[in-house]
C-alpha cells in the first residue's frame, strides 16, 4: 500500500485491522478510541475518503492510497492553530481524525458550507469542545486556505 506517498509492504494476519497495522509501524497519529467505529479518532483516508481504520481489514488496503496526519502535517498544523485561536480543543485526542475529515472535505468541495462541515464532523466525538468552536475553527481554516 501507499502510505503518505511512500510504498510500504507489511506482513499481516488475515484478520488484522488497519489501525493496528499502522500503529505497529509507528503511524501513531492513528488512535484507537471506542474500537467500535463510533468515535472517529481512528479515522484515516483511503483514496481520499475518511474511513474508520479500527474496522477496516488491512488486507483490503492492498494497492490503495492511505493518508494519515503524518502525511498532511503542514495542513494539520495550520488547522491546529485555528483550533487554538477559537478555543476548539483541550485534550486534542480527537484532532487527528478531524484534521483528516477536514482534508477530505477540502478535496471534495470547492467552497464547503457550514452544513458540509457539520456533515463531515458527524462521527467525530469530542468530549471537550461542544463542537461549536470546532465549526468556527474549521470555517476560519477553510477561509484561510481555500
Amino acid at each position, binding site marked *: 500500500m501507499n502510505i503518505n506517498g511512500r510504498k510500504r509492504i507489511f506482513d499481516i494476519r488475515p*484478520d488484522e485491522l488497519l489501525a493496528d497495522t499502522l500503529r505497529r509501524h509507528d503511524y501513531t497519529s492513528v488512535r484507537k478510541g471506542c474500537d467500535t*467505529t463510533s468515535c472517529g479518532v481512528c479515522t484515516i483516508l483511503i483514496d481520499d475518503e475518511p*474511513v474508520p481504520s479500527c474496522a477496516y*481489514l488491512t488486507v*483490503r488496503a492492498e494497492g490503495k492510497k492511505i493518508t494519515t496526519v503524518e502525511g498532511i502535517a503542514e495542513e494539520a498544523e495550520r488547522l491546529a492553530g485555528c483550533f487554538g485561536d477559537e478555543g476548539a480543543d483541550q485534550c486534542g485526542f480527537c484532532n487527528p481524525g478531524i484534521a483528516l475529515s477536514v482534508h477530505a472535505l477540502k478535496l471534495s468541495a470547492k467552497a464547503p458550507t457550514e452544513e458540509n462541515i457539520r456533515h463531515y*464532523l458527524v462521527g467525530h*466525538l469530542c468530549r471537550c469542545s461542544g463542537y461549536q468552536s470546532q465549526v468556527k475553527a474549521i470555517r476560519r481554516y477553510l477561509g484561510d486556505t481555500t
Partner: protein
Amino acid sequence: MLVKFTNYHRAQSLEDAHKTLQKDKSNTIVGGGLWLKLSRREVDTAVDLAGLDLDLIETTDKTIRIGAMTTLTQIEESDTLRQIASGILVEAVSEIMGRQLRNVATLGGSIIGRYGFSDCITPLLALDARLDFHERGIVSLQDFLTEKGKVDDILKAVVIDKTKAKGYFKKVKKTAHDFPILNVAVVKSEDGTRIAIGSRPAVATLAQAAMDHLAAATTIDKKTITQAARIAKESLKYSTNHRAGAEYRAHLAEVYTRRGLMEVNGLED
C-alpha cells in the same frame, strides 16, 4: 477485533465465493466488515466479495438494481435513488452515523444481518424491494426478513421499482450518531400504500392491517389516516430495551405513521 479469521479469500467469481462459503460452516462473507468485526466467533475463511462488480447502481426501464457491495455513501450520493419515492432511501442512509462509517458499510451487509436497528431495511420494505441471491434467485425482502438463521447464499443485489411514488421516512433518535428508537417509512404509489415500521426494536415489518384499512377505504382523508395510524400502533408488537420503552415506541409509531400518511397524501397534519 473480536472475530478471528484463519484465512482470507478474495473471491474471483460469484461461483468461487459460493463454493468457498460452503466449505466450512464457520465461513462467512465480508461485506463492509463493520458488524462482523464485533461478532464473537472464530471463522475458518472470510470470503471477500470486493472486486466482483457488486458495487454498482444500475437502472433498467422499470427497475433500479443496487449491488450488495454498494456503500452507503454511494447510495447517499446517487441522483437516481434521490428521485425514487421522495428520496427516502437516500434520506435514511444519510442519517446513519458518520461519513467514515458510510464509506465502508455496504447495503448487503446492512440487510443480510436482519438487524432490528437498520435504517436501510425500513425504507426498502416500504419500497417493496426484492433481493437477488446467487443460488435462490429473487426473494422478496418481506419474506427474507421472516426467515431465521445464517444465510448460506450470496446476496448479489437489491432491486426496487422505478415507480412514481411519494415517500416519507422518519428516524427517531436521541443524537446524530445514535441508532433509531423507531423508524417509519411510508410509500404511496399507484399500487397502493405501504407502511414499514422498524426498530420496534425488532426488525422492520409491514403494518399490514393499517395498509389493508387504507386499501379498503373509499376516500383517504384525515379520519381514515388517523384510524390507519391507530391500527399500526395496535396491530404490531413493540418492546422495551435500553433505548426506549414499548409504550413510547407504540406512541411514536402512531404519530409518525399518521404524519407520513398525511404527507404522502398531500394533506396538512
